[in-house]
């Protein structure tokens, strides 16, 4: 067994620290197992979303029909003003704001300020729910008014619909799951369930939530802006 104490065995920085973490007779990762498992899950989820976005790139590159212009497809008329992509921009701001409130919830949780933690997590979940609501509105408009289907659409390349519903649908599902996850954890924080165990769970839930925001950054850039 390493003669150093547990605390200073994780203090060596850089590559030599990494070698020590992996090669010494100790736990390789200095964190609760739940947090490590969340990171591993998020890595696998990164692969799933990367594969979706890569296949989207592939079909968009190989399509001979013209790709519908997302700037126009997702435009809205608000009070008579034609605004391109406005709903998507609002959804982006809502999700970023929810990430901000979540980051502060993690901070409050580690300071054991339960009241603020619950309040901030609830705000995060509500913002997430409103994101899903706006997405439902967007889908409805696209299906009912624009006639977009997974197998075709009036604007151009048929692959537009299938990739759109697949990618945003899978992301929306993640947001929905996140809202439920946050609601459950917030309720348990309110009941004082983590007073003994510690509040790593809030950070773990936060990692998931920030990841959902992170994926949206890529979807926003590649699907809506490109």
């Amino acid at each position, binding site marked *: 067994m390493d003669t150093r104490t547990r605390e200073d065995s994780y203090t060596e920085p850089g590559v030599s620290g990494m070698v020590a*973490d992996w090669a010494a007779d100790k736990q390789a990762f200095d964190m609760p197992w739940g947090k490590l498992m969340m990171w591993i899950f998020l890595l696998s989820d990164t692969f799933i979303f990367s594969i979706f976005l890569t296949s989207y790139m592939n079909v968009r590159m190989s399509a001979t029909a013209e790709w519908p212009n997302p700037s126009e497809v997702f435009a809205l008329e608000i009070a008579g003003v034609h605004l391109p992509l406005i709903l998507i921009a609002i959804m982006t701001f809502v999700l970023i704001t929810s990430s901000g409130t979540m980051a502060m919830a993690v901070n409050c949780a580690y300071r054991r300020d339960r009241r603020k933690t619950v309040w901030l997590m609830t705000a995060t979940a509500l913002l997430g729910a409103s994101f899903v609501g706006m997405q439902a509105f967007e889908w409805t408009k696209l299906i009912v008014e624009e006639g977009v289907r997974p197998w075709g659409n009036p604007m151009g390349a048929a692959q537009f619909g299938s990739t759109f519903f697949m990618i945003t649908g899978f992301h929306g599902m993640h947001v929905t799951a996140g809202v439920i996850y946050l609601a459950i954890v917030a309720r348990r924080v309110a009941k004082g369930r983590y007073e003994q165990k510690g509040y790593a769970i809030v950070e773990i839930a936060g990692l998931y939530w920030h990841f959902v925001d*992170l994926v949206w950054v890529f979807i926003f850039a590649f699907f809506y802006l490109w």
Partner: protein
Amino acid sequence: MSETAGQQHPIGIYLKIWLLLFVLSTFSYLVDYFHLEGFLRWSLILLFMFLKAGFIIAIFMHLTWERLSLKYVLFLPLLAIAVLIALMSIEGDHTHLMRLTFFDE
């Protein structure tokens, strides 16, 4: 685990990053709003995207303060994705060319 093993940073940093992400998102929206085209459009979209993603991972997900052991676990596998993207873009180009050659009316 030791009970205090958690990420603890001043709350101001989250507010600053939040504001920064707002500004960067506005910029990427403006790229579309002003109908920038071609190389300028794509490079700006990618720049704002990577900046936003970087700040979310580094600050909100606290990766800056994590050990190198974890960083390598998270970033090395992404090389496989880079390879996939390269292969699929070659394949996409090829399919496009074949469709133009043999199927375009």
